[in-house]
């Protein structure tokens, strides 16, 4: 009898945690979407009004558009630079360990530090980037103050922060390609580019897929970057999904509406990831 109980005792911490911090919150979150509540006063049933509000909420749509802009810039940049640097690291070079460690450094440092740093680099008058532009005779750019530039600026910063991880993942991928493939291709007289597109790219397809999925989830999880750098501005051009949930929930205490946002974004993430999976599997 005791013996039979042991496995359940061992998994019980997980089950308790799952029920309290996952299952109940998911259920409660859906329930909250039909109510208005500020935690202090009693809950008020409002039917579908939170959903109606969501679809008419310009900032919600803006946050989706911002996320889209972020992803359209972030994902290609990430893949191109990670692949390029991984290819370079995969050659017979000295100090490989040092270069790899240097590229990886931003990955382990807190996003808060990275954001504070880039806020200075992006500064309008004294920021290093604008000083550089002025030096070569170009006009200053409002990296964080011009609504057209603000989200792309954040996307570039996020690439700088994350690309080290993908360099390492691509490097692992590149090293799984059997060298015989390249040797055979060389015998047939294939060029560098041909080898890259015909051999390397198909072999590291799974890694590319992973970059796309992780970056998508990352785009929808963007928070500290706009929170510190821009507060969501200028003109809501950097309001992200999580920043908007945070504002509705912890600034205005609209728990019902914040839950609706969270629920909707979660569904959207799952849907987008599923579509990407389908799309990429078909590609193979």
């Amino acid at each position, binding site marked *: 009898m005791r013996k039979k109980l042991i496995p359940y005792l061992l998994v019980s911490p997980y089950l308790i945690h799952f029920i309290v911090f996952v299952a109940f919150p*998911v259920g409660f979150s859906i329930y909250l979407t039909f109510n208005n509540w500020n935690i202090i006063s009693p809950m008020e049933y409002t039917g579908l009004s939170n959903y109606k509000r969501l679809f008419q909420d310009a900032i919600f749509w803006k946050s989706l558009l911002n996320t889209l802009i972020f992803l359209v810039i972030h994902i290609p940049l990430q893949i191109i630079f990670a692949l390029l640097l991984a290819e370079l690291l995969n050659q017979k070079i000295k100090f490989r360990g040092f270069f790899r460690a240097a590229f990886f450094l931003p990955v382990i440092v807190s996003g808060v530090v990275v954001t504070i740093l880039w806020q200075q680099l992006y500064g309008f008058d004294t920021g290093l980037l604008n000083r550089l532009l002025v030096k070569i005779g170009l006009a200053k750019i409002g990296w964080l103050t011009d609504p057209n530039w603000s989200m792309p600026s954040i996307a570039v910063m996020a690439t700088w922060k994350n690309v080290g991880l993908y360099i390492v993942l691509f490097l692992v991928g590149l090293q799984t390609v059997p060298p015989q493939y390249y040797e055979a291709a060389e015998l047939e007289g294939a060029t560098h580019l041909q080898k890259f597109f015909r051999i390397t790219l198909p072999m590291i397809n799974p890694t590319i897929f992973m970059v796309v999925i992780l970056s998508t989830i990352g785009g929808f999880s963007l928070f500290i970057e706009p929170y510190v750098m821009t507060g969501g501005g200028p003109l809501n051009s950097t309001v992200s999904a999580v920043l908007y949930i945070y504002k509705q929930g912890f600034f205005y205490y609209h728990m019902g509406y914040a839950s609706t946002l*969270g629920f909707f974004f979660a569904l959207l993430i799952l849907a987008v990831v599923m579509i990407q999976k389908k799309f990429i599997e078909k590609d193979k």
Partner: protein
Amino acid sequence: MKKLLFYIFLVLGAVIFLYPFIWMISASLAPENEISGLTFLPSGITFSSYIQMFDKIPIGKAFINSMIVASTITIGVLVFGSMVGYALSRLEFKGRNLIFYIIIFTMTLPFQITLIPQYILIVKFGWIDSYTGLIVPYLMNTLAIIMFRQYFKSIPQDLIDAARIDGCGELRIIFGILWPNSLPALATVGIITFMASWNEVLWPLIVIRDENLMTMPQLVTLFAVGGRAESQLGVKLAAATMLALPIVAAYIFFQKYFIQSMASSGMKE
């Protein structure tokens, strides 16, 4: 010739990734009036930014808070993760597969959906402004469970059988027999968990209001955003340097483990 081009690109890359950090440290040590024009090294070193920062915010207390929170979470994730991982990989019981599927499903669940209700739970439990509120929701980690489950599968059954014959209980088997044989898995899970909790900032921002209980990333964030740095850039950068320092120091010593751990967790997701 081609080699030279490779090195030029690599060095350029290294400069792009390292320079901002070098600038940060050197700006935090520069006199305030030099920072705006600073490109590389200041004319002289001063600690005044650091002294002012220590005056304005309880950064020492925040360091201790971060240490307590990140260490407790890491120990919890290692202990609970290996218990569940062991049961799922080495014991037969009804519902085992169901639990495994629940874990896989939970891993794909975006946190956006649980954020608000988890906060409400913490309010109702009375855990706002407490270590408990910061720690308990993170004590269990599905990725850790999966990693331990995978690793324990590779350990020979003889080892476990021998321990059973010696009369070891299951807990003794996990912590006395499996742990010493699973150092890579322990290191991987430990490093990822510690780093993630050290850098976590959204949850502390939600759960903690009392400045004396704030973790380092939260305190530095609020300091940078809240205007208490009074637009003194040096003080802001000194705070950022303090926040980066512990993890960077650990990274310099255990660089290989950091990279391997992060890479293997990326693969699993």
